[in-house]
């Protein structure tokens, strides 16, 4: 199969959906001629014109609000939010307006919009351009949240997002834009709420999201060298969350490590770990391990930044300890 980059995959997904449906359009900063600073959208304005690939002023709350209104009245906007860190600016429009409109109107109004943004540290971009803030929107009912972990996933999940009749927030890993993966030429969609068992294993389940799926896979390689067989599960969407697949895996392996690049406290690992601990309680041979980013603003210095996120080594170590029964806590 041909291999394309995550960036190309996103580009193809948008182009295909825009060809299929006249009402789909995209708006954001420097999305047209510039094709975004990450060059993800290059070429789209040439095909679809500046009315459908719409450059905006630097007004995140404003253009997100405009997308909400457009979505309520017949269009299907894709909002391009240049950095995930800017989601703080659009929280009111996203969480008070977009997320609640369908419910508040008793099902009369719908807001079929996608907010595309990114996550991921270690790009030396410092505290306001490196955050992984998906836990925040996952907490708000009415929003769906997708976390693609490869070019293949990015294309399939984004196409599904565009067709969903709800506001969907999709976080791409900005460090993976150039990473290639096999992506079929034929059209495909990836349904929401269906986790992917990336790799089967017996001894421990590594649940990784987005950027951390790769980390989990590399950790599984390390573990394999220690005769430990790790299963890797990618939830793909954290809202809706495919609890059944996760629990099924953990009930089989009896051990779990949850890995996510958002801050650990009050983050995604807490939700997944606590569901496992509750609903696979009688199957667990070791406490569920949570590995998120450190609870610190992301430092600029490379010497510090690299310490803040889980690595294949640190994941393999923690998973190995779980399997070897070394995770005792104080009495």
């Amino acid at each position, binding site marked *: 199969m041909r291999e394309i980059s995550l960036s190309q995959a996103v580009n193809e997904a948008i182009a295909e959906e825009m060809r299929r449906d006249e009402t789909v359009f995209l708006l954001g900063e420097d999305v047209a001629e510039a094709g975004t600073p990450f060059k993800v959208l290059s070429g789209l304005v040439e095909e679809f014109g500046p009315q459908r690939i719409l450059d905006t002023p630097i007004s995140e709350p404003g253009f997100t609000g405009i997308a909400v209104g457009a979505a309520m*009245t017949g269009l299907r906007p894709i909002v391009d939010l240049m950095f995930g860190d800017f989601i703080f600016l659009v929280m009111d429009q996203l969480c008070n307006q977009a997320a609640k409109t369908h419910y508040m109107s008793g099902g009369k109004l719908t807001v079929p919009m996608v907010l595309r943004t990114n996550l991921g540290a270690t790009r030396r971009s410092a505290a306001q351009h490196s955050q992984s803030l998906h836990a925040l929107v996952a907490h708000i009912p009415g929003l769906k949240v997708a976390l693609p972990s490869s070019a293949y996933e990015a294309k399939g999940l984004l196409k599904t997002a565009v067709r969903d009749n709800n506001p969907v927030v999709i976080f791409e890993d900005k460090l993976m834009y150039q990473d290639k993966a096999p992506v079929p030429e034929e059209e495909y969609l990836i349904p929401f709420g269906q986790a992917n068992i990336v790799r089967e294993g017996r001894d421990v389940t590594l649940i990784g999201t987005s950027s951390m799926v790769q980390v989990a896979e590399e950790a599984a390689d390390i573990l394999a060298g220690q005769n430990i067989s790790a299963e890797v599960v990618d939830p793909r969407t954290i809202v809706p969350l495919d609890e059944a697949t996760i629990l099924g895996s953990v009930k089989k392996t009896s051990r779990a490590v949850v890995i996510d690049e958002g801050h650990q406290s009050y983050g995604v690992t807490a939700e997944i770990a606590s569901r496992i601990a509750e609903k696979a309680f009688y199957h667990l041979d070791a406490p569920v391990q949570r590995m998120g980013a450190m609870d610190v603003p992301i430092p600029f210095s490379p010497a510090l930044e690299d310490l803040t996120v889980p690595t294949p080594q640190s994941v393999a170590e923690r998973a190995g300890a779980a399997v070897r029964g070394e995770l005792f806590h104080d009495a």
Partner: protein
Amino acid sequence: MKKAENHNAENLLRMYRQMVRIRTFEDIANELYLSAKMPGLTHMYSGQEAVAVGICEALDKTDHITSTHRGHGHCVAKGAEFKEMFSELLGKEEGYCRGKGGSMHIADQDNGNLGANAIVGGSAGIATGAALSARRLGRDSVTVCFFGDGAMGQGLLYEVMNMAALWKLPVIYACENNLYGEYTHMSEMAAGDLKARAEAFGIEAFEVDGQDVLAVNRLAQQLVARARNHEGPFFVTLNTYRYHGHHVGDINRTYYRSKEEEAHWKENRDPITNFGAWLIAEKIAGADDLTSVRETIRQEADEAVEHALGAAYPPATDVGEHVYAD
């Protein structure tokens, strides 16, 4: 008062009727609150009727509006029915939003009302987005964004006005300056000049007496026609006054505005009284006709509220419905 060229007895009387319908709705809503029959609080539109009616009478059903926490007037003026409105205020299943929205989120999509909003200024983006849809989908509809003087404090408004101006969108920003945001006079909240703020973004701006339904409607007709003709966006300040407190529970108001001021507006500037007098003076209607209009409406409203009071709450299963659309 001065009528427009296309004003005739029929549409003049409809404006009167619509203003009376709003006032009547609010009077009853206030009674519901005072008799502890309504859950929560609500914000009365009484006194501002000429704004909503003057503007909405210039709109088609397919045109959109966005509304505010003080939204009953806009909702009635855009064509809503009493029964569904009272049911919504009482949290009943028959309400426009199945009781899930209540007073501050009442929406009536069929008549083009995209909803009230409990975030001050929160609908500025929505209105502008609706105008973008019209433009992109080749519809000739116009969107009116209603908001109060207090909403001029929200930065979102300036962001979207800038985009509306850049993209020449068919949206009219209607600022209802009723002099107060909650318990504070607008002079303490807004520096400079409201109209100039829109003009600085290249938006043509107007000011009109919001107690004169004919003046409001004349201007609205012009601007709606021009917006349909791709000459928008526009901004209008409508000078008006709210009769009640900020919400139904705001009873003692003298620390922020005088009884004399309130009396002045109610006695001299009432949009319904003055328009009624004009209709009579111009011999478009007799005093009896207007009395009968008011009585009929009151009766309709009483029946509607009676129905709503007796109507069913949504079933418990509804709580988990409509979080997501299919």
